């Protein structure tokens, strides 16, 4: 047997075993879950050096699993994040109920994602896609009753995506008579151009739901914020990347034939840009830390979509670099917010404040996270942003680059609000009992923090596997060195010099300010401050967190009024009515559902010739 078989077998069998063990010997459960994730990671690393293929037949269809440089890139992301998530979950979930259910679904999600990236035929792709969707849905509704409508929303959108995928797969089969990826890719150019476009758009819709491109993002903020933190880290870090994985395949493997695809790509790039900008604006006005991160995640995926849709070597490299990096920093941020939740029981940014001295390492993780998101040197985010901007300018997307830049500058606002309201600001008596989270939760956060630092100084280390993946996607080559990046005009940025200069100046200034007049100083409380002669009482609230960006809100009020108040509530109302209507459709009665399936199938058969051009 080869590694891929081991990976899938161990993960899926491990999921089942964990569930059973939970009901037999509780203490063993965590150990088994961690072992399963760790051995998944081990075999993924094993599989990097080998090129394998598993073929077996089910009912005339060949099921093929294999790895490509492109899938290796995503598999490593899944394996590392999956392992760290389960490590983090050990202590985070310790007091919760139904842990067998939790771990089983978590491992199913991980297994489903492995399956997606290793599938070399569309049948198993769709199968694993559904496994992932189902088990992630079960995790979204894990917490409580309130999660049910949110889970329903997630499921309805996932269903839209799944149906688009299914229709596209059926169309592909009708047109090429084959479901093996290698054959499809060879024959795809022979299909009529209209069908090519329709298939590509359907596939993009299907994958776009998971990566939450506007207007398919509606499910994301609520689902991200209600699911348990360890899973959210994986949800936003890895699961949303499955959409990106598919979009990359569609754009570069399927869509390279027809001339019309350039229009699809432009539309997609602009959708990405709008997603990035609007999601950032929404993030600024959130009061819940997880919801803020959810919107931030939507926005960041917008950048990735732009990079892929623009399609120059540098922009693809930027997008794939962001895929890896976003996996790391969004997991860090969700874990850090999770740590705050673990100790305070809330993620409300208006009530939690001043935790920096109580949770210093969680603070450092969040600091590294927000520096990476903001794209400020010297951490990894800068390299990604640099490549993205350069590629957009050089591929003549002048106004798109402005939109992207406005979005990433506005991102400073919500990032600062996040770290300020949770960790900085006034220290309130209410949170005086808080202490740092256990070691097992800190380890994943610190590992990821170290990673974003290394990725910033030596982006070339991350770009090596990315360039292999890009070779697979279509022979895209670009110039880079371990710590030097080049743009298409030949200008360069040397990260080694940057880090040396920043490091040296920081060290000199830091030593100066520390040792200049060094003496024992007294720590003053945050109440003991300059207040123009007034002395605040111990219980007086000086926290400035509510409506933190009121001036900014006022400034963009006219724009927001047009978009949020009118269009969005209109859409919201309509959606609500639509969901009301859905209640008649989804009666909750199994027989009704069975009838729907039969009806749908009979409709498909009736109109098969019209829709797919085949006679059944």
């Amino acid at each position, binding site marked *: 047997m080869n590694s891929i078989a081991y990976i899938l077998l161990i993960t899926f069998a491990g999921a089942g075993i964990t569930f059973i063990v939970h009901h037999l010997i509780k203490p063993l459960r965590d150990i088994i879950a961690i072992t399963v994730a760790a051995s998944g990671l081990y075999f993924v690393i094993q599989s990097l050096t080998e090129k394998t293929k598993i073929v077996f037949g089910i009912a005339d269809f060949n099921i093929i699993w294999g790895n490509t440089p492109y899938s290796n890139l995503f598999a490593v992301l899944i394996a590392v994040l999956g392992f760290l998530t389960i490590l983090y979950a050990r202590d985070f979930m310790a007091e919760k109920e139904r842990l067998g259910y939790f771990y089983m679904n978590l491992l199913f999600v991980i297994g489903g994602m492995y399956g997606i990236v290793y599938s070399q035929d569309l049948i198993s792709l769709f199968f694993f896609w559904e496994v992932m969707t189902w088990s992630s849905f079960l995790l979204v509704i894990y917490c409580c009753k309130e999660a049910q409508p949110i889970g329903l929303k997630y499921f309805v959108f996932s269903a839209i995506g799944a149906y688009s995928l299914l229709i596209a797969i059926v169309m592909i089969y009708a047109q090429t008579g084959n479901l093996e990826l290698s054959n499809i890719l060879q024959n795809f150019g022979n299909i009529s151009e209209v069908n090519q476009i329709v298939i590509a758009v359907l596939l993009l819709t299907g994958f776009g739901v998971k990566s939450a491109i506007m207007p398919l993002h509606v499910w994301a903020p609520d689902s991200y914020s209600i699911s348990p933190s360890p899973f959210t880290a994986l949800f936003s870090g890895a699961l949303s990347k499955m959409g990106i994985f598919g979009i990359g395949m569609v754009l570069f493997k399927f869509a390279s034939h027809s001339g019309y695809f350039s229009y699809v790509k432009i539309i997609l790039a602009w959708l990405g840009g709008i997603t990035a900008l609007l999601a950032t604006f929404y993030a600024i006005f959130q009061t819940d830390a997880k919801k803020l991160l959810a919107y931030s995640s939507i926005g960041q995926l917008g950048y990735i979509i732009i990079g892929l849709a623009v399609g120059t070597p540098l922009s693809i490299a930027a997008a794939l670099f962001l895929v890896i990096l976003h996996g790391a920093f969004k997991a860090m941020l969700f874990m850090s917010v999770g740590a705050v939740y673990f100790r305070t029981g809330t993620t409300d940014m208006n009530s939690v404040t001043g935790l920096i001295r109580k949770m210093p390492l969680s603070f450092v993780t969040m600091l590294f996270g927000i520096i990476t998101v903001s794209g400020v*040197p010297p951490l990894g985010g800068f390299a990604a942003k640099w490549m993205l901007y350069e590629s957009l300018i050089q591929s003549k997307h002048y106004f798109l680059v*402005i939109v992207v830049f406005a979005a990433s*500058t506005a991102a400073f606002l919500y990032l*600062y609000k996040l770290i300020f309201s949770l960790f900085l600001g006034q220290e309130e008596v209410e949170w005086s009992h808080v202490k740092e989270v256990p070691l097992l939760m800190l380890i994943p956060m610190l590992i990821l923090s170290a990673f974003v630092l290394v990725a910033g100084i030596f982006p070339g280390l991350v770009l090596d596997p990315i360039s292999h993946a890009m070779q697979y996607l279509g022979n895209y080559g670009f110039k880079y060195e371990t710590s030097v990046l080049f743009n298409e005009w030949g200008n360069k*940025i040397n990260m080694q010099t940057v880090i040396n200069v920043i490091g040296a100046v920081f060290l000199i200034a830091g030593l100066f300010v520390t040792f200049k007049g060094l003496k024992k100083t007294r720590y003053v409380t945050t109440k003991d401050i300059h207040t123009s002669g007034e002395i605040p009482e111990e219980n007086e609230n000086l926290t400035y967190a509510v409506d933190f960006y009121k001036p900014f809100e006022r400034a963009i009020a006219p724009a927001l009024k047009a978009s949020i108040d009118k269009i969005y509530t209109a859409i919201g109302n309509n959606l609500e009515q639509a969901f009301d209507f859905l209640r008649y459709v989804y009666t909750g009665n199994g027989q009704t559902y069975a009838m729907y399936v039969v009806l749908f199938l009979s409709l498909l058969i009736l109109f098969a010739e019209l829709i797919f051009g085949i006679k059944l």
Partner: protein
Amino acid sequence: MEINWSAVLGIVFTPVIAFLVGVTYGGLTRRITARIQNRFGPPFYQNILDIIKLYSKESNINHGVMQHLGPVFAITASVTTLFFIPVIKDSPVFTNFSFNGDLIFLLYIMVFGSLGMALGAGQTGNPNSAIGVSRGLSQLVGYEVPFVMALVAIMVQFQTTSLNDLLAVQDHFTKWIIFQSPFAFLAAILAFLGMMGYAPFDVVIAPAEIASGPPSEFGGKYLGLMLTSRSIFTFAKLVLFTDIFLGGAHDFITLIIKTFILYMIPVLTGIVFPRFRTEQSIRFFWSWPLFFGILAILVVVF
């Protein structure tokens, strides 16, 4: 290993010169402002005296690690920005590291200091600091957009993102980018008003309103370091604009003349205008400067 002595000289002297020029400009500004307001004003070297006094003070209290590091972040950003800008054209001493970075890098490293400062100010727990930071970041979104538009227009026009290449293009004063791309200059110089933080865009420190905002809990060596950083940063921004639009300078006298003229634009504007509210300030940047920015890009494209 052979040591490149001219580079070492540049690394040592560039920050010193930047500090001296910047701090003198600051002193002159106080003097000029005073004369316009019909006061006598302090001597032009008053700011140097202030900084020396601040450094010689002792601190008995601290507000925690981030507050301690805030001014360090600020000066790191200022000095790094300076090092990646060619101060004197074609000089082996004063080009420093400018061949290893480009305009996009400068855009980002320039906000590094404000963000670090914001973190430091955040830990002190002073509500005025938080209000100041909130205003500062909001205004940053305002003026960065037209500034980037101007830069994009220039980068596209000359097919480079490197400052040294831009300098090489402007080998004669008729080829200065201010003449080649006037709309970009207009957008950038209006954004520059916001960047310098003089009235009407002094919403961040807003004296007599939020008690100087973010720096309000900083004193002694911390305030000294911040003022040092501010002087260096002012000079760095002025040199950056001179390099981009006014063809740089071959010697220090030209540089002083060009930067001083540039510096007087925000200073003199500031004296005659009262303060905007934050939202007015943001909306201002998204009106005319944005218009000029779009125009600059359109001119380049068509």
